[in-house]
């Protein structure tokens, strides 16, 4: 149904796609995998009409196309679910679903028809909790994604491209999404599914195309291949030990941070202790208060009740600056808006924190920064490169370097490997464990249970703003999920 042939593209003389071939059949889920920087996004943007390819053809149902504006790709039947949603938060669901193709009657936008058809589309994909008149900003991330999907379906798509659709979702939401993807494929849509998460790729796809360094390495039938083979194609080597070994009991030392009865508008009665040398994982569904906990510890959305000590001294930070001074660092879940000054250089970004808050022992020297960037295994053209042009994994490494420059005692990570490729992920995992071994107290929040289980020395589970349980290092996914979904009211609409 869809064929891309000999697609090449260069930016500023750098070739990012080399003669890529791809074909998609009706009713097929075709997975596109590859590390960040492999060219997946560029390929997708070419399909979306956002980039114009230098060479190559796109054929849909026998008709050749050259897209120069996203509108043309839409008309040709291509729908894209972007990783960063293309939604307008202050407009209604219906207005978003029909954006760019509002139904018109006698020259005027037919609001009624628009809302009725939005309702029908949502019903078709079994989404009953969203009304067409709701403002998008009032919806949870998962539901915003549903709106994106409805939006694609509204334009009579034949090919649906999904870019890391499960990245912002918690596990149970991902399962619902997978079910939806299957239903859409069963209706005859061709689905191009881009993902870092191999289990779901194997779960959903009929074929897998592996990209590396802008070239197609291979296209495999999912039923006839293994995760190892796919990973080998992606990284060009075998990845055996995914997670570094956990802490031995004698490596876990003094209390670095304690909270007793901490609470604010979103979280209640928090009691926890972080110790030197230990990695503590926090599990929970989206909206369970995981991020709120991190933000409270960091003073960004402070605790209003309870007691807290940092390094043995009582301190309940009321703003990030106080927390930073006390040696707390927070790697936020959104590095682009909260972690980096995207248009500044790698070096300036690494100095972001220490220029604002001078760490104990004085500001880091240029040499120390260089050493730090090496330590986090940053792959960049140089320290002058703008953070904007780094891959997700390398951007994350810069964020980590920025915090290490401040010589923290407590490191908080919120989704440390979201949107990060396999290679960088392993590097970050190794680094986190190294830091713990050097005596830092680490807290990791993650929606990816395997990561949480693989990395943590113990796991705290949150539900509805409360800590509902603590599990040992080798907990099973099922027991975590059981606790995480144990809340009285079931999953609650997140206070977005």
């Amino acid at each position, binding site marked *: 149904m869809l064929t891309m042939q000999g697609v090449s593209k260069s930016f500023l003389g750098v070739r990012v796609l080399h003669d890529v071939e791809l074909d998609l059949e009706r009713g097929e889920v075709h997975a596109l995998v590859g590390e960040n920087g492999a060219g997946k996004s560029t390929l997708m943007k070419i399909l979306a009409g956002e980039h114009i390819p230098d060479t190559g053809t796109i054929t849909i149902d026998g008709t050749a196309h050259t897209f120069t504006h*996203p509108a043309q790709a839409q008309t040709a039947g291509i729908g894209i679910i972007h990783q960063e949603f*293309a939604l307008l938060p202050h*407009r209604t669901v219906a207005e978003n679903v029909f954006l760019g193709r509002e139904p018109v009657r006698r020259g005027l936008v037919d609001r009624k028809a628009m809302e009725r058809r939005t*309702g029908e589309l949502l019903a078709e994909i079994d989404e009953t*909790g969203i009304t067409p008149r709701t403002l998008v900003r009032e919806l949870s991330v998962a*539901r915003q994604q549903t709106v994106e999907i409805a939006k694609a379906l509204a334009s009579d798509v034949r090919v649906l491209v999904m870019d890391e659709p499960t990245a912002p979702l918690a596990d*149970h939401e991902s399962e619902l999404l997978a079910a939806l993807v299957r239903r859409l494929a069963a209706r005859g849509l061709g689905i191009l599914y881009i993902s870092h998460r191999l289990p779901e790729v194997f779960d959903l796809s009929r074929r897998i195309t592996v990209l590396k360094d802008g070239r197609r390495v291979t296209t495999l039938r999912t039923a006839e291949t293994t995760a190892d083979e796919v990973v080998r194609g992606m990284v060009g080597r075998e990845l055996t030990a995914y997670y570094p070994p956990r802490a031995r009991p004698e490596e876990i030392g003094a209390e670095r941070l304690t909270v007793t009865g901490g609470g604010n508008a979103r979280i209640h009665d928090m009691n926890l202790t972080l110790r030197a040398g230990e990695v503590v994982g926090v599990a929970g569904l989206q909206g369970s208060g995981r*991020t709120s906990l991190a933000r409270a510890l960091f003073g960004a959305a402070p605790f209003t009740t309870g007691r807290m000590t940092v390094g043995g001294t009582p301190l309940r930070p009321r703003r990030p600056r106080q927390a930073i001074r006390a040696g707390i660092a927070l790697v936020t879940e959104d590095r682009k808006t909260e972690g980096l000054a995207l248009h500044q250089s790698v070096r300036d970004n690494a100095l972001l924190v220490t220029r604002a808050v001078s760490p104990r022992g004085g500001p880091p020297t240029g040499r120390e920064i260089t050493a730090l960037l090496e330590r986090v295994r940053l792959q960049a053209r140089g320290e002058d490169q703008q953070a904007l042009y780094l891959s997700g994994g390398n951007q994350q490494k810069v964020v980590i370097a920025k915090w290490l420059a401040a010589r923290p005692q407590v490191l908080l990570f919120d989704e440390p490997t979201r949107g990060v490729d396999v290679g960088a992920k392993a590097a970050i995992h190794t680094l986190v464990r190294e830091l713990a071994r050097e005596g830092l107290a680490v807290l990791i929040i993650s929606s990816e249970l395997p990561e949480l289980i693989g990395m943590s020395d113990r796991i705290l589970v949150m539900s509805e703003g409360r800590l509902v349980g603590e599990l040992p290092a080798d907990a099973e996914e099922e027991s975590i999920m059981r606790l995480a979904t144990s809340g009285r009211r079931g999953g*609650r609409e997140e206070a*977005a």
Partner: protein
Amino acid sequence: MTATEPGRLVPPRAGVRLRRIRLGDPVVGVWLAALTVTLLGWIVVAARGGDFLTTTNAVAILQNSVALGLVAVGQSAVILTGSLDLSVAYLISLGTLVAAETMASGGVVTAVIAVLALSAAVGLANGLIVTGLKVNAFIATLGTAFILRGWIEDNYTGPAGKVPASFQHLGYDRVGPVPVSVFLLAAVAAAVWFLTRRTRLGHHMYATGGDEHAARLSGVRTRRTVVIAHIICSLCVGAAALFLAARLGAGAPWAGTEARYDLESIAAVVLGGTALAGGRGGVAGTLGGVLVLAVLDSVFNQLAVDPFFKNVVRGVVIIAAVAVYARPRRAAKGRPTA
């Protein structure tokens, strides 16, 4: 997808007919503010032995709102789209001059066409500079403002042209107690309101202002939308120029700049709850903003207060309004708690 939410199943059509009036809505807020200012003015003026709520005074307030109203309505269109127009003041001046001179030599109809054509051309130029050359709207329209100013200063030293009595009706006639010009403002405002709220173009204006990238990815021709918004704005400014020419009886190089229509119009738009970043707000709020400013003016005139004090109050009102809008509303803005 999150089907795990019992109790959230809202009947699909609930709330469709019933649009509750929300106090947090800036449009409601600004009209309430206009009402409050009027009441306060009435009380204060009455306390001084005057009478504020007379027909004459109400008519005067409306009459005084017309020029700013027209400009501010146009300004709303560009600001909604995420742009801005600082050239409006000089365009008004030039518009009155062109109108009066053309009317002196040619006919009224030719003059109206000439002014609107000039306005459309300036709007087109602004739009193309902003979208094509990708110059920030602030600088782009400041540039056109300088160019227009240069032209005016080079060619005119004082009032020029003459507006015939037939056209001055627009400035002075009344239907019953209501000035004709108020109908002009009402018509233009209604047209722009209709355009922004009921047409595709309007939806695309909100989308472009809200998130240009998202709009583009949804197939919206964002550049075209911005250009058209600039043309709409300039046409409204042209209408204001025609009204002022009728009022003054001639063209004047200071017609637009003396009253600072550039910054005043932006103030009115912002006061009316339109986000300066675009994508939120609209004409209804802007008219409220214009009314607040006009009522304040009237109160101060009646009380004959010190112009310094008057400006201080205006400044405070504008800052206070924006500070109120900036306050996170319930369930709005907040960060996603994961």
